[in-house]
């Protein structure tokens, strides 16, 4: 029992991070499911983290209210920038959202209230393990329900062929905006949870590199379903810890793993069919 207590005391932060990044990965998965390549989710996470931290520190709001705000604030921003931005397609959308993310980071960097580059410290540590588990569970349940609903099928139709989808009478614009805003909510809540688990946040955590990292988790894990992004988030969060013994060369290994997965596992690491085949269960339909 003492061993377990020690293990938890040592690795709880790491396990929290896996949960938080799984939530962010799902938020990107959601936009990708609708055919949108958005790189704004790191910025949404940042907005959620800063809004929630400021409400905790300066206004003394209770944690649940802070988390709600962490989801709503980026959703409002997503609604405003989404209407003009979502007209763009493919790479251009990716670049516009990337640019938006950089602008958000630079604004946070230059404001007084956000503490500039020194960030915010002394954030109360309110996040508990069960908060993350519950919110992640809720998100997975909701998204799984949605996939099988009308909205989910509409997303799939839009991803496959936008023109055909709109000819079938699907309101493409509205569905895209919905996916974008809901993604922002998930990312924002994840940001709020993260801020209240690590005492401290700073603008550099929500920049270009993080946007790319999050996208990488999803592609690494596999975008075919809900499990892939979470597996990807888990593995890529753990990998630097597991590679500790490689010291300064672990970055090389990290990069190589990424290349190899993209080259040899086109559907990501989590591919149910392949895994069933591995255990000799043979391919199944569905």
């Amino acid at each position, binding site marked *: 029992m003492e061993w377990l207590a020690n293990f938890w005391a040592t690795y709880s932060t790491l396990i929290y991070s896996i949960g938080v990044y799984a939530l962010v990965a799902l938020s990107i998965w959601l936009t990708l499911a609708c055919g949108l390549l958005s790189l704004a989710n790191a910025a949404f996470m940042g907005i959620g983290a800063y809004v929630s931290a400021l409400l905790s520190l300066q206004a003394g709001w209770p944690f649940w209210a802070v988390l709600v705000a962490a989801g709503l604030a980026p959703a409002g921003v997503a609604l405003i920038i989404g209407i003009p931005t979502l007209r763009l397609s493919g790479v251009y959308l990716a670049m516009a959202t990337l640019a938006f993310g950089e602008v958000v980071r630079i604004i946070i960097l230059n404001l007084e209230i956000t503490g500039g580059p020194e960030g915010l410290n002394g954030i109360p540590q309110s996040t508990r393990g069960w908060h993350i588990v519950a919110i992640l569970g809720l998100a997975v349940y909701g998204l799984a329900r949605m996939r099988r609903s009308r909205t989910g099928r509409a997303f799939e139709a839009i991803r496959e062929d936008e023109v055909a989808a709109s000819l079938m009478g699907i309101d493409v614009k509205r569905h895209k905006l919905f996916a974008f805003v809901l993604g922002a909510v998930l990312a924002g809540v994840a940001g709020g949870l993260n801020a209240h688990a690590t005492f401290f946040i700073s603008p550099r955590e929500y920049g270009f590199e993080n946007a790319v990292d999050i996208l990488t988790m999803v592609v690494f894990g596999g975008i075919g379903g809900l499990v892939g992004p979470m597996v990807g988030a888990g593995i890529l969060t753990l990998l630097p810890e597991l590679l500790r013994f490689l*010291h300064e060369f672990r970055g090389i290994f990290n990069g190589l793993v990424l290349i190899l997965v993209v080259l040899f596992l086109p559907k990501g690491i989590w591919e149910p069919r392949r895994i069933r085949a591995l255990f000799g269960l043979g391919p199944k339909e569905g």
Partner: protein
Amino acid sequence: MSSLTKTLILAATLVTVSVQAADIKVGVAEALSGGAAQYGVPIRNGFQLAADEINAKGGINGNKIQLVIEDEQGKKEEAINVFKKLIFQDKVLMIFGPTLSNSMFAAGPVANASKTVAFGTSNTANGITDIGPYIFRNSVMESDVLPITVATAVKHYHIKKVAVMYGNDDAFTKSGYDVFKKVLADQNIPVTTTETYVKGDVDFKAQLTKIKAGNPDAIICSALAEEAANIMLQARSLGIKAPFIGGNGFNSPKLFEISKQAGDGTFVGSPWSNDNPSSANVNFVNAYKKKYNAEPNQFAAQGYDALYIAAAALKTVKLSGNLEADRQALRDALPKVTINGATGAFKFRPAVTKDGKPGGFDADQKPFIYILQNSKFNLFTGKN
């Protein structure tokens, strides 16, 4: 490739040391990879040098010091993970580090909550010791150094107005700027313009051209040494002749190695200098050069001194074997320590927190003021 061998040697020494029976386990959490490694690596070297010296002389009351060194990569999550590993798994008596102030803000509360000393050797930001009574540092705060640096330079050059330049996306250079700003206001020195740059910038000409237009008597600069050297070179190539006044980031031989004559006339204050003739410092500089075949810097010196401070405290403590009691005993012994180290005479000063709670302990040290002449830091005596 040599770094790999170094790592192997390090691993080997750790293994041999850990065989000893009565070891005092001390955690060292520094950024050994990533961008902050340029500070973390010399700090670790300073610790290793001090540990080797102490152990070679028979350790502390017969017990050897065993350093448990972990890489926190200069990232806040990693710093928390490493702190937790050191406290709960390795069961160290205390922790040195982490390298960056940002990481201390994240990891410091972990140590404080588990009543374990976290001792920063390179955290200069304001508010570090507000975290709690278990937070110590021997890094001198900019607010203790810069007023003296600025006043000395103003007197020497008869400065009437200055321009300011700083890195605005880095906690270290930004907090240095905040102190400069206050000092300039306190000493009634007008500022012609305040310019910024961001990490990774290599072209400072737009800002410097603007500074030149204001014709200042000096340029106040809160930057890291290598950026500062590039700023100086580009300033001279634009025909700016005003001298520079720098903060803690200037304290590296890199500054004049790169800037050559462009940096001449620069004023800087520092808790440490290569040329401080005290015997403790001469020993340190020579031993460091011999062991690592490289010039030591301020970060290495502060790491080196920090372990001697902890050793002095441990000498007065009778270790019981009960980890919690020993950690507390060490915490209570530390504030009384005074030593004469590589950075000169040192003692602690209790921190005054904003909300009146008992805080940690800051360094109480007098800085040296240096002027850069002929690509060398010379102690400023008023006659240079």
